[in-house]
């Protein structure tokens, strides 16, 4: 049990896909303009990541090294489409909001990276826990960013009014430029603290 917890925890902080690995940032900037979008992205992302990791782990002995990447991509794309179809059938309103960004999941470096670096070499159960850990690590960061952007850009969090109606929201926060700026501050903070820690060591 302890081993599994360690795998999950690894995804949440020590190798958090966004904070430490700092990859697959397209989706981070794109969907964090409201908490709602971030949440749906999280669902799609977790679904695709966990199932892809399982399948790839299952097939790891058969997949030839030469064409592993095309196979990974096909597997990931398949699950992405399934996620799309499911969300469209059962959560239509949210699907409408982020349908342009769903394909970002397909080419998300995090998923391909984890498929290669973890599930291509580890057992199915381990892969499931790695997927869970990575999903949690991914989701808490994008939801946090989305909360900040939505509060200042719209005065609400997940649709609930936080600031009084008299607050005039800074529209820029939910527009593209602020996505970059907030990510910049976040990345700066991370690299800064990591550097500090290294120096201390």
């Amino acid at each position, binding site marked *: 049990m302890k081993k599994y917890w360690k795998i999950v925890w690894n995804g949440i902080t020590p190798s958090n896909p966004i904070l430490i690995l700092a990859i697959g940032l397209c989706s981070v900037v794109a969907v964090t303009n409201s908490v709602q979008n971030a949440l749906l992205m999280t669902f799609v992302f977790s679904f695709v990541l966990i199932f892809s990791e399982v399948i790839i782990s299952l097939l790891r002995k058969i997949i030839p090294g030469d064409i592993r990447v*095309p196979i990974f991509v096909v597997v990931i794309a398949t699950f992405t489409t399934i996620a799309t179809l499911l969300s469209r059938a059962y959560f239509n309103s949210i699907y409408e909001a982020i349908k342009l960004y769903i394909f970002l999941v397909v080419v998300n470096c995090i998923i391909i990276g984890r498929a290669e670096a973890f599930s291509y070499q580890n057992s199915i159960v381990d892969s499931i826990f790695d997927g869970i850990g990575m999903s949690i690590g991914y989701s808490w960061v994008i939801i946090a960013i989305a909360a900040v952007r939505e509060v200042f850009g719209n005065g609400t969090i997940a649709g609930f009014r936080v600031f009084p109606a008299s607050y005039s929201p800074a529209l820029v926060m939910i527009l593209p430029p602020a996505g970059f700026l907030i990510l910049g501050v976040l990345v700066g903070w991370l690299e800064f603290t990591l550097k500090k820690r290294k120096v201390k060591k």
Partner: protein
Amino acid sequence: MSYLANLGKIFVASAFVNNIVLLQFLGLCSYIGLTDNMHASIGMGYAVTFVTVLAAAVTWIIDRWILIPFHLQPFLQIVSFILVIGSLVGLVEIYIRKMSPHLYKAMGIYLPLIATNCLILGVTFINSLQGFDFVESIVEAVGAAIGYFMAMLILAGIRERLRNSELPDFFKGKAIAYMVSGIVALAFMGFQGMIK
């Protein structure tokens, strides 16, 4: 509106008004990763232009001649597009690596980077979503690629210049690239409304 004017509109929209990197956040990995090096930025720019146009052409054919006639579009689009784009890029890379080492050094090494670049897939999806015809798709692809190229050059130029200034420790490295992109995106918001 004449057909030609319409094409012009599509081009301006994809290159400036909806700049694919700055305002649609596609292709960020390579945008941030490679702009530390002006040479690499230019090579990547050429490679992206080449592949985007190629991908737009091929996926348009697949979309119109296979997926739509057989009613497969809603569920097979993503898989077919990515499979075809990925494989094509791989083939081109292997080919020019052998045939022209010179071209390979200038552009070919950037090709694998593109197979999983969301920009390419994004452009093909926009084309399909908007229901563009063949020429419109190509124009959209060229516009998006030029928008990408421009964003790469801007960021690479500014980063090169900032190497001489004393950045605060906090913003050294990639962070400043994001901050600069934010301000450039702010400037590009000025193009809003150019297309009616």
